[in-house]
C-alpha cells in the first residue's frame, strides 16, 4: 500500500513541478492562471500524501536521489509544448481517476484528492474536446499512450484503454527513469542543496 501511495504522491509532485513551468508562459493569460492552479493543487496532493508517509514531507519530496522516486515516466517527460502538455494532462487525469477510485475505500485522503480532481478532469476534458481533431494533439496522444498505461496497475489498463479509446500496448513502466528527470531533480533541489545544515528556508 505504501508503495502505491508513494507512487501516487511522486506522480502528483512531478506533474505539478512540470506543469508549474508553464506559469507565466501559457498560450493564453486566462489559461495560464487556470493551469497554474492545477499545478499547485497537484503539489498540494503530493504534500498531503507525503505527510501520511513521513514526518517531514519536504525531506521526502526533495532529499531522495532520482532513482528513489516512484513516479511514472509519463509525468517525468519534459514537454514544454502545449499539444503534448495538454495531451499528458488529459491522459493523466483519466488514468488518475481510475487509480484514485481504487484507493478511496482505504485511504481517506484519496477521497479528498478526488474531489479536487473533479475540476481538473473538467478542465482536461474541455481541452480534449477542443483539440481532439488537431493533428498535433492526436499525435501527442499516440506518442504518450504507452506512458499513460504505466500510471495505472496492469489490471487497470483495460479500463484505461476503454476510456481513452485506444488499444492497449506495452506500457512504459514505473521505475523507469526518463533521461530528463535527472535535470529536473537537479534544478528542483539546487537551492535546498546549496546551504549547509542550519539553513532556513
Amino acid at each position, binding site marked *: 500500500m505504501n508503495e502505491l501511495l508513494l507512487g501516487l504522491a511522486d506522480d502528483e509532485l512531478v506533474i505539478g513541478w512540470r506543469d508549474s513551468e508553464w506559469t507565466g508562459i501559457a498560450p493564453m493569460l486566462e489559461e495560464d492562471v487556470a493551469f497554474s492552479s492545477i499545478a499547485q493543487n497537484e503539489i498540494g496532493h503530493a504534500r498531503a500524501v507525503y505527510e501520511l508517509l513521513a514526518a517531514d514531507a519536504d525531506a521526502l519530496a526533495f532529499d531522495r536521489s532520482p532513482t528513489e522516486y516512484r513516479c511514472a515516466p509519463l509525468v517525468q517527460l519534459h514537454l514544454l509544448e502545449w499539444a503534448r502538455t495538454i495531451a499528458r494532462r488529459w491522459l493523466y487525469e483519466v488514468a488518475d481517476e481510475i487509480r484514485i477510485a481504487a484507493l478511496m475505500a482505504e485511504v481517506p485522503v484519496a477521497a479528498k484528492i478526488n474531489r479536487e480532481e473533479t*475540476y481538473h478532469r473538467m478542465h482536461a476534458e*474541455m481541452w480534449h474536446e477542443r483539440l481532439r481533431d488537431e493533428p498535433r494533439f492526436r499525435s501527442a496522444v499516440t506518442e504518450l499512450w504507452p506512458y499513460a498505461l504505466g500510471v495505472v496497475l496492469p489490471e487497470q489498463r483495460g479500463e484505461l484503454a476503454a476510456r481513452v479509446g485506444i488499444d492497449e500496448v506495452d506500457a512504459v513502466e514505473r521505475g523507469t527513469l526518463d533521461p530528463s528527470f535527472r535535470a529536473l531533480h537537479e534544478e528542483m533541489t539546487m537551492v535546498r542543496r546549496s546551504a549547509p545544515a542550519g539553513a532556513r528556508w
Partner: protein
Amino acid sequence: MIYEIFRQERKGQAFEHAGSVVAPNAEFAEAWAREQYGRRGESAALWLVPRDAIHDVEGWADEFDLKYRRVDGYSIKARLKEARERASSRPR
C-alpha cells in the same frame, strides 16, 4: 467572445461586476473565471454573461424637479418642530 463576470462575495450578497474574460464558449469561460475570480475562496458564486447579452441603459431626464419621489424631496424638520410645539401647548 467576451464574458462579463459578476462576483458574489458571500451568499446572500448582491453580485458585483468583477471584470471580463475572453473565451470561446461558456465551458472555457467557466474554467477560466473560476480561477481568476475564486482561487482564494473570495467568491461564493459567479455569473458569466456574454457581453452581447447586456442591454445597456443610462441617462434619465429630470428637468422638472421630481424630488417628491425621494427623501431629499421632504424637509419635515420645520413642520415637525411646529407640530411638536403646538402639541405641547395644547391643553390636555
